[in-house]
């Protein structure tokens, strides 16, 4: 096991050279590797000078959780253990982060819902931990297949939510995530979402920097709340003060606290803009009149559809949202200028992304918004289905 005291000004406890996030993400030379999302997450965390991680098995995130355990055994992660269930794990993560650790954990589907109460506690106590959410269907009936309905439950927890499309994005995003979440004026938890199996278990080419460099360590003394370590004033300090009504004006305290957490998420925008190179990414034709607004794997599928539609002479573009909280409202509005039809393909039955898009564009955009196509419970979304949806809209009754 490594010791934190082995860290020097230039190297972390496992001997990796400390570099800036900019260097790690944008400047360091990269080489091609071929690996799964779970494996790439190990590579990302290996370069993040992670203090603590807590794990629990659930498909499809278990592999990633094992691999972070291996990092601990190899001396890259400070402390690691298996918790008793997801509610326990997220509580343990809270403890780790409150005590001043850069902390990461992973979960999926039913585990996310079991742990739910913790996420609001995380944001309310301003811990900058990272949850890698490998989305999977939630019961009932039981499924272990990809489906991102669970994300809709996370939208109002006060945590930041980013969505990675593929293995490469998972690598880059999960590194940027710590950096943005730990900014003093942000300092709220970050949930990095990928679609389970479609990313976690998909093997593809990915460009990685060398593994002898890593992020600067987390400095808990630059946090908006003191860490719980008895080393910083005020000595009399309760991390989550139980503000009851018997303390007058506590409603203003609670309300301000809630607004402050949401304000913190808003303050992440310029940082995310920089480290993600934009809150949205656009693929396709500038003069298209049809747009797909997507996140995650739906972006991949929409890009396939876009290419096929081009062959039919139909111009489209794919507007991929990379952050869901904060929601890239301004960027989306700019991107849909001149668009007549917006399609929101989704991997869930409720269409939470469609609702988000409609809310933000209401009264601001003339385009017709179609919530579809939708698949759920592990189905893939073939480009053909997306094309059919488009053709039905622009050429009713004639089919693709």
């Amino acid at each position: 096991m490594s010791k934190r005291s082995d860290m020097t000004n230039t190297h972390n406890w496992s001997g990796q050279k400390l570099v800036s996030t900019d260097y790690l993400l944008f400047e360091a030379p990269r080489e091609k590797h071929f690996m799964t999302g779970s494996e790439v997450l190990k590579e990302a965390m290996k370069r993040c000078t992670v203090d603590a991680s807590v794990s629990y098995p659930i498909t499809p995130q278990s592999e990633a959780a094992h691999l972070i355990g291996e990092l601990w055994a190899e001396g890259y992660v400070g402390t690691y253990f298996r918790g008793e269930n997801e509610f326990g794990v997220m509580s343990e993560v809270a403890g780790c982060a409150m005590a001043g650790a850069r902390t990461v954990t992973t979960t999926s589907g039913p585990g996310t819902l079991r742990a739910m109460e913790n996420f609001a506690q995380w944001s309310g106590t301003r811990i900058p931990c990272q949850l890698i959410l490998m989305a999977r269907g939630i019961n009932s009936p039981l499924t272990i297949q990809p489906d991102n309905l669970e994300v809709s439950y996370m939208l109002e927890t006060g945590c930041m939510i980013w969505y990675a499309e593929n293995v490469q994005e998972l690598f880059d995003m999960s590194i940027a995530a710590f950096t943005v979440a730990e900014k003093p004026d942000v300092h709220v938890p970050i949930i990095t979402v990928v679609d389970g199996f479609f990313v976690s278990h998909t093997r593809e080419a990915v460009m990685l920097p060398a593994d002898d460099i890593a992020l600067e360590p987390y400095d808990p003394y630059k946090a908006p709340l003191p860490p719980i370590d008895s080393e910083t004033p005020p000595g009399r300090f309760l991390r989550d003060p139980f503000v009851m009504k018997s303390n007058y004006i506590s409603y203003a305290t609670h309300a301000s606290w809630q607004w402050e957490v949401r304000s913190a998420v808003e303050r992440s925008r310029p940082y995310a803009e920089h480290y993600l190179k934009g809150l949205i990414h656009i693929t396709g034709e500038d003069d298209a009149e049809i747009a797909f607004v997507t996140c995650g794997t739906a972006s991949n599928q929409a890009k396939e559809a876009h290419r096929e539609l081009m062959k039919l002479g139909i111009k489209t573009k794919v507007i991929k949202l990379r952050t869901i909280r904060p929601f890239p409202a301004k960027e989306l509005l700019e991107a849909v200028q001149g668009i007549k039809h917006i399609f929101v393909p989704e991997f869930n039955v409720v269409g939470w992304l469609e609702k988000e898009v409609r809310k933000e564009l209401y009264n601001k955009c003339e385009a017709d918004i179609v919530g579809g196509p939708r698949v759920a419970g592990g189905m893939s979304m073939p480009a053909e289905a997306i094309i059919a949806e488009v053709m039905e809209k622009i050429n009713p009754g004639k089919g693709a």
Partner: protein
Amino acid sequence: MANQGPAYYSPYPAATYEGVITPPEGKALLLEDVVDEETAMREIAKQMLTKENATIFPGPQVLYAWSDEAKRKATLIKEMAEVLNANMIPMYDYRPKYPKIDAEIEINPNHPNLTIWENKIKAAIFIGVHCHYANVALKIVRAETDCYTIAMCALSGHEDAMATIRDQHASDLEKFIKIAKEVKSELGV
């Protein structure tokens, strides 16, 4: 009762809801405008020197002698209070206090308006308060009082204050004191 802000009992909307966020590095905020640090410092000094019962609220990070930086800042803040003719009222911790605070001599982030009402404070500097509690307090003060709030932040600044300067370390405080002295002699107060 003190002059109350538009919301009276609810600290809404927060500044971010109006699109204002913390200033970029090297810059400051005056209301919603991003300005140079020196411009903000001059305005802060002017506000403190001209408003009634101007007060500095030092927070835990500077009240206690836990680091060399804290010790150095303590001396400078004392000097700052003298230059600005300001009172000092400590925010010594963040816990909700039972049964009540003595609003004349202390300020609590859970109901900072009480101290501002009690002492009829029209301009105040928050310094050494952890960002989260500063923001909670600033939101309440903004909603419930007519106090001109100033946040001198060692980190990224506070958009809910009317004026905020960021990355303020001991040497920056020295610079502020120098500017405040100039403003003071210009104003002749």
